[in-house]
């Protein structure tokens, strides 16, 4: 009988294979490594029942994750709500909009998925310290999951990060390191540190495993849509890893026969102040020229996107696109989502929602489409983005004051 499960690390560029240990770069051509699986013994009917009877979180998909068995995990990320957003769909003139609210994870972003997978692998490989380069959400997740598992952790972030994200990292008792520089500087430092220290950097030397966690967003989408694929998806792009892994997740299930139909059209969302992948898409290039980020969407502020080439391929192959929006459009996107769905997202979700609105306005998405929108983080983490433009009525605790102020429509700034 075939040995099911992960079998090797394989170079995405030249196909060289390696053992399943803490490595991430091909020694032959310097290309990125990805986990290769053998799914040949899996039967769709049996698998569907097994998944449905599994844990209420991402470990229900452990047959598609890089482990021999099912790892233990106390924080239980995944299986976040997929909400049918009829009021948003009606406002934009789209057939069906489904919002995958991944802010409903333990540390309020999709990063709990990738960290759960990376940490389980780090433990399996015998590491006692985990670390990361982060724009904030990953920092929260690494610090929390390390605390839950009793591991030491080091978290490297740009020192100018939103205060909410710094505090929501430090509270878990991690070693928080603010680096004078942007994310790409932090990333370069961590790539060098990963060589010097015997630590598991979740998004450097454990990246092939870490990235696999994002596939669970695709699996959940299919399961929650009743084992169907959407027509289109809209997803934020920073490095391009989440975007491409959602594609890989859909494809794995199509190949096994867990779901039928075409791969959805993939629409990527970037901020204009950091849109190297959107620029390359518009210019017809297949590689990205790096940029210096200048946007309120700090969680997407990666100027040198490692998976940019693969994100471009995926958008083009599926008839999708990669768009960018301005900071004002991002703020508008946050409000649009909040006012029509009751979901308060951070700036990255504002980018995604604003791109959805733009695609609808341009007629790219319309009445015949079922669209899934990936909301990857929580609004309370980027409060500064919405500080302007809201008003609160201030009154004395009397009926008269209420009638004079609120009823008369006299608003004063909060």
């Amino acid at each position, binding site marked *: 009988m075939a040995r099911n499960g992960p079998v090797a690390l394989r170079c995405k560029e030249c196909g060289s294979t390696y053992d399943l240990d803490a490595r991430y770069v091909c020694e032959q051509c310097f290309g*990125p490594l990805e986990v290769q699986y053998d799914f040949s013994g899996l039967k769709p009917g049996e698998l569907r029942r097994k998944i449905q009877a599994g844990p209420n979180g991402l470990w229900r998909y452990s047959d598609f994750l890089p482990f021999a068995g099912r790892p233990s995990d106390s924080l239980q990320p995944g299986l976040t709500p997929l909400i049918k957003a009829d009021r948003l769909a009606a406002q934009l003139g789209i057939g069906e909009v489904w919002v995958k609210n991944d802010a409903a994870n333990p540390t309020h972003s999709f990063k709990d998925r990738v960290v759960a997978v990376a940490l389980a692998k780090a433990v399996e490989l015998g590491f006692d310290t985990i670390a990361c380069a982060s724009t904030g959400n990953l920092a929260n997740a690494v610090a929390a999951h390390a605390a839950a598992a009793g591991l030491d952790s080091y978290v490297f972030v740009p020192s100018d990060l939103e205060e909410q994200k710094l505090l929501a990292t430090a509270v878990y008792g991690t070693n928080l390191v603010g680096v004078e520089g942007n994310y790409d500087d932090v*990333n*370069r430092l961590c*790539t060098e540190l990963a060589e010097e220290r015997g630590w598991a950097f979740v998004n450097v030397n454990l990246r092939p495993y870490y990235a696999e966690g994002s596939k669970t967003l695709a699996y959940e989408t299919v399961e929650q849509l009743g084992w169907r694929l959407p027509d289109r998806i809209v997803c934020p792009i920073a*490095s391009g*890893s989440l975007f491409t892994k959602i594609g890989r997740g859909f494809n794995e299930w199509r190949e096994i026969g867990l779901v039928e139909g075409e791969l959805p059209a993939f629409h990527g969302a970037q901020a204009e102040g950091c849109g190297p992948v959107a620029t390359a898409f518009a210019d017809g290039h297949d590689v990205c020229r790096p940029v210096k980020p200048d946007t309120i969407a700090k969680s997407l502020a990666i100027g040198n996107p490692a998976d940019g080439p693969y994100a471009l391929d995926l958008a083009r192959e599926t008839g999708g696109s990669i768009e960018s929006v301005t900071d004002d459009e991002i703020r508008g996107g946050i409000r649009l989502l909040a006012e029509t769905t009751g979901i308060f997202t951070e700036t*990255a979700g504002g980018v995604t929602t604003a791109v959805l609105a733009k695609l609808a306005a341009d007629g790219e998405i319309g009445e015949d489409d079922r669209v899934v929108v990936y909301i990857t983080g929580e609004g309370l983490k980027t409060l500064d983005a919405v500080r302007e433009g809201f008003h609160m009525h201030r009154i004395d605790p009397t009926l008269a004051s209420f009638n004079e102020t609120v009823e008369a429509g006299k608003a004063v700034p909060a």
Partner: protein
Amino acid sequence: MTVTVKIPAQLRLATEGEGEIEVEGETVGEALDAVFAKHEGLKERITEDGTLRRFVNVYVAGEDIRFSEGLETALADGVEVTILPAVAGGH
């Protein structure tokens, strides 16, 4: 100009284990050619048709050479040229 080219661990099979190589060169391209002359196997690993492969990042004193003149970027004496893989990232 004499510069130090830093070789990442993943490429040291091609440099007999050397992690730092001192070479002469006026530009990044010249410095890399000087490294390739010492370690032939390195050239095919990080270049293709005379340009850097798409997952290779090169920094001069910490700055990505794509923000400067690419392989034509001029070098100052004593500067560090760092080769790193482009495979870390977030969203």
